């Protein structure tokens, strides 16, 4: 590994995944590193506790940046100059991940905190089981986005696929484009002033200036699946 303009450079052609991640973990707070030639490799920049700046130069594989940061103290700021495979930012706790391209399935799955920004489209099940994190998608989101999401925010600048927000708990989804269909117990609600404020802040953070904060659909839980209803007795 070598140091270039005060930023460490880690070449995936020379280093295994563990060596790359160990070097990233060892970075002192406030410093940064560039990861080069990722060539779709999995598990890069996973579990980084510190606020450091990591740039991944190319297309990455599964679980990029997962498990990073802490809920209270923030975490790493990761930028991917390319696209990512399944489960980017899975179980993210804090910090941010910005993907310049698209994301494959399950982006931000179970993220408890932090911000995940997808500048392209996201595939199926984006934000599945979200637990407090924030997911901003500039383009379209695939089917079953927000499936069983418990807490947190999902912003979709393009269109949403089928079964949006199926079995939602208390997470909220904002959609600018069309919704192919809503999932079980998901409903479209009126945007409140507070919603507009949340989106305004998120648009600023993500840089998605194609999104009009007061012209969105708010998708949330109708809370009809929270309790057993005797009406459904026959189904069991």
């Amino acid at each position, binding site marked *: 590994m070598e140091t270039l303009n005060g930023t460490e450079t880690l070449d995936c052609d020379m280093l295994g995944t563990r060596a790359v991640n160990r070097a990233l973990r060892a970075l002192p707070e406030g410093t940064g590193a560039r990861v080069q030639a990722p060539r779709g490799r999995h598990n890069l920049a996973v579990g980084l506790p510190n606020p450091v700046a990591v740039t991944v130069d190319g*297309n990455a*594989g599964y679980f990029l940046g997962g498990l990073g940061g802490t809920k209270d103290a923030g975490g790493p700021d990761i930028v991917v100059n390319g696209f990512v495979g399944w489960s980017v930012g899975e179980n993210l706790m804090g910090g941010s991940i910005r993907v310049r391209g698209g994301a494959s*399935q399950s982006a931000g799955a179970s993220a408890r905190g932090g911000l995940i920004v997808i500048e392209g489209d996201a595939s199926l099940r984006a934000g599945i089981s979200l637990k407090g994190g924030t997911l901003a998608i500039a383009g379209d989101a695939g089917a079953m986005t927000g499936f069983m999401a418990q807490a947190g925010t999902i912003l979709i600048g393009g269109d949403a696929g089928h079964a949006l927000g199926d079995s939602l708990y208390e997470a909220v989804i904002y959609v600018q484009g069309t919704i192919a269909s809503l999932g079980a117990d998901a409903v479209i609600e009126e945007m409140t002033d507070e919603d507009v404020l949340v989106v305004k802040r998120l648009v600023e953070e993500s840089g998605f200036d194609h999104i009009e904060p007061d012209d969105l659909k708010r998708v949330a839980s109708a809370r009809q699946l929270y309790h057993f209803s005797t009406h459904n007795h026959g189904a069991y």
Partner: protein
Amino acid sequence: MIEALDERGPDSSGIAVYGDRPVTEGPPVLRVSLGSDEAVDWLALGCSLLDVATSGAELHRFGAGLVLDLPETCLSAVEQQLATEWPQVKVLGTGWNLRVLKDTGRPTDTCARYAIRSWDGYLAVAHTRMATESAVTVLHSHPFVPSRDLCVVHNGSFSNYATVRRHLVDDGVRFDSDNDSEVAARYLSSRLQFGDDLEEATRWVMKEMDGFFTLVITSGDEMSVVRDAFACKPAVVAETPAYVAVASEYRALAELPGIAEATVFEPRPEEVYTWRR
């Protein structure tokens, strides 16, 4: 390419290549790829097949199999000879210019063992298997070639394959293994025989077969990709003016020439993508 995905399925691997043989003058020649789950005296087998394939037949021995080039008129005699004298040997695939190889073990080892890098061709399909539904043997490996030049590879698992197979067996279709993917391949082939085109036949597979699947289907001059409604299994496509490539993961495409300029996208569920040569 496939070596990058070794860890996805280390138990068996298979490769089919279209256009491995230079086009020669004279009557068209069929290529038959043979393999077996048992130890076979391939030299004796070759001699016995050349005995019945009277004129113009040619043998190529390699590793755990054998390739036979022969005029179409000799095919039934060869098939008859195999069925009666060599029941443990199966036809891995038949085509006008298709070569099929299957073996157990990692693709990296298979590619090295059979010097895949030296093979030529315009279309290639490679598969690495992590068996879930049936045994790990040569004949259970992908790709499946249920009819001439038709090649199917599958990632996933089908749940209603026994039912579909019973119907096919009733219709006289024969199977070489109890692999669920072979059922999808032979069902597809039966649809094509009914007169469907590749895209229609692929839609029938989607309709009739329950389960998880990403399928890549090739004929001599077409390639289709289809994923189940839930897109349970991954797929990524790279398109350039020079080629189209499909893989389970980008890692398999990362070393392709011009990949940086390629249009790379994830095929949507339940959409049949077809490319023609």
